[in-house]
């Protein structure tokens, strides 16, 4: 056996990963173009590209660049961040059922944003909104990991996550309950449903810096996730600062999810689903899952946001509702698959 032979398997796997990445990028680009073309005025992909680069009619340009482009960018960035957060949390906790929404992060972020609006501290386009959402998301993920403790099993994590998202939901309901202003109640309903309709570049500017910062933080830790496959103690013995890693992941998830929720409301289950779609294609290496999971998240949210525009209905279906309708049965399927581990109470 020579060195060439021991590395042979990695080349096959690397080619496979490159192929999967190429397909994912292509799917995301196609979905972006479709997303720019779908709406009350349907545009062909050629018209869309025309509008993007400044050709076609003025109306065409306004529709593509000012109405649909922010929405498509947000779907891409938020979906990507949710997919990345899901993969990072699953890697950190070595647990395929980890995800921001199961841990109450988006729900808590929504509460943070709702509180700011209800107290009249800010209007919907101020920086106070993402900041409040980020602080609340950080608090909830931090609390979850503190409650669950080190090496927590599936059961503890999910119970703690359930408790925290219920708490965030109850707190949001309380704000709604106490609010005498019907407009505030309407705003709050919007946070609970989650949507990308009627977003402008102001929303993009509000969310994107936080999403990018969160993504940089998470991707900066990428190699540690693989070492963590051996457990926290072994990872520490290999030179991974596990306490620092936890803090970085919590911060990255909070920044990204908080920034996203501040402009879109709660959009659940993308983070749970995306890594599961990628694992059968490229394997279980938590480091290699990060970027493909982000792309899968982008594709999922873009597709969901296209679907809500295509599904005929009397009133608009919110994209957050759609992702939950699809995501929850998927979660149930995962529970069935993992039920032996769940029954034992250990991961």
């Amino acid at each position, binding site marked *: *056996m*020579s*060195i060439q032979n*021991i*590395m042979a*398997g*990695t*080349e096959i*796997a*690397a080619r496979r990963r490159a192929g999967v990445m190429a397909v994912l990028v292509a799917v995301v680009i196609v979905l972006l173009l479709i997303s720019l073309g779908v709406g009350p005025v349907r545009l062909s992909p050629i018209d869309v590209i025309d509008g993007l680069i400044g050709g076609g009619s003025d109306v065409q340009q306004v529709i593509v660049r000012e109405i649909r482009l922010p929405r498509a960018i947000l779907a891409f960035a938020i979906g990507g961040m949710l997919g990345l957060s899901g993969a990072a949390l699953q890697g950190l906790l*070595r647990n395929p059922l980890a995800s921001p929404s199961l841990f109450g992060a988006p729900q808590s972020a929504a509460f943070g944003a709702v509180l700011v609006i209800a107290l009249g501290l800010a209007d919907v386009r101020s920086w106070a909104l993402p900041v409040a959402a980020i602080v609340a998301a950080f608090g909830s993920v931090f609390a979850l990991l503190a409650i669950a403790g080190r090496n927590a099993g599936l059961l503890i994590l999910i119970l703690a996550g359930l408790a925290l998202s219920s708490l965030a939901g109850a707190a949001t309901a309380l704000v709604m309950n106490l609010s005498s202003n019907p407009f505030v109640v309407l705003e709050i309903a919007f946070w609970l449903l989650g949507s990308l309709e009627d977003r402008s570049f102001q929303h993009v500017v509000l969310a994107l810096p936080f999403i990018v910062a969160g993504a940089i933080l998470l991707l900066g830790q990428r*190699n540690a996730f*693989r*070492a*963590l*496959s*051996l*457990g926290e*103690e*072994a990872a*520490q*013995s*290999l*030179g*991974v*600062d596990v306490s620092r890693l936890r803090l970085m992941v919590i911060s990255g998830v909070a920044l990204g999810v908080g920034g996203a929720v501040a402009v879109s409301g709660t959009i659940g289950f993308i983070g749970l689903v995306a890594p599961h779609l990628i694992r059968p294609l490229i*394997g*279980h*290496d*938590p480091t290699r899952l990060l970027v493909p999971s982000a792309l899968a998240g982008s594709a999922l949210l873009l597709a969901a946001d296209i679907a809500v525009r295509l599904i005929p209905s009397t009133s608009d279906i919110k994209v957050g509702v759609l992702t939950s309708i699809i995501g929850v049965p998927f979660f149930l399927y995962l529970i069935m698959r993992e039920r032996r581990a769940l029954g034992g109470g250990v*991961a």
Partner: protein
Amino acid sequence: MTEHAIIAAEGLNVTLAGRLVLSDISLALSTGHLVALVGPNGAGKTTLLRALAGLVTSEGQVHVRGEALSSLSLGERARRFAYLPQGHLVHWPLPARDIVALGRYPHGATDPARLSAKDADAVLRAMQAADVVQFIDRRVTELSGGERSRVALARVLAVEAPVILADEPTSSLDPRHQLDVMQTLRAAADKGALVIVVTHDLALAARFSDTILVLSEGRLVAQGRPQEALSEQVLGEVFRVSAYRAEYQREMVIMPWAEM
């Protein structure tokens, strides 16, 4: 002995959750030795292993080749100590190569698909020493317990650290694999590493080690060559057993026989 020792501990105390788990441990261990760490359940064996690697905070002095453990960064510690925790747990179904390649993580090789020639060489050597080359592209979760423990061992050998700390590497293995693992660790010691093995198997400890450390209730109560450290008196006081002793092929055989 202290001057040649690669690890020297002086007055080591460890308190976990308000309980004194290790008290006043002093020892000096040299390279090229296999040291067995034995003691009843709860004696603090695992904690001592962790304290020597700097994985738990301790009071007192630990020196590695004359350098204070506390002055070493996490990365520097990782290159000096290869640590094999109990259970050989792997959370994701990764191929054996990727697991073994994690042994090169402390040397900066973070991507198992892009190993330098030196790192790939170390991985190959470790896989050969632990006899797991044939599993290279197999997922570790598909391997048997014995096979998985050898992959875990290869990961530790791939660090090529001067000190190897193995926590119950033979537990839950069949007799053949127990011998296999001990022989691999013995070979690593013969090549110049200091190998410290926590074990409950006194027979394996006596047969393969140069030195035995006996821990009881957080204290080091005996240390020395197997015959001395596992004397009738120590076995009686610490383990509360009597043992059958014999010699076979010029090696000492010891087998716990009756409760006392």
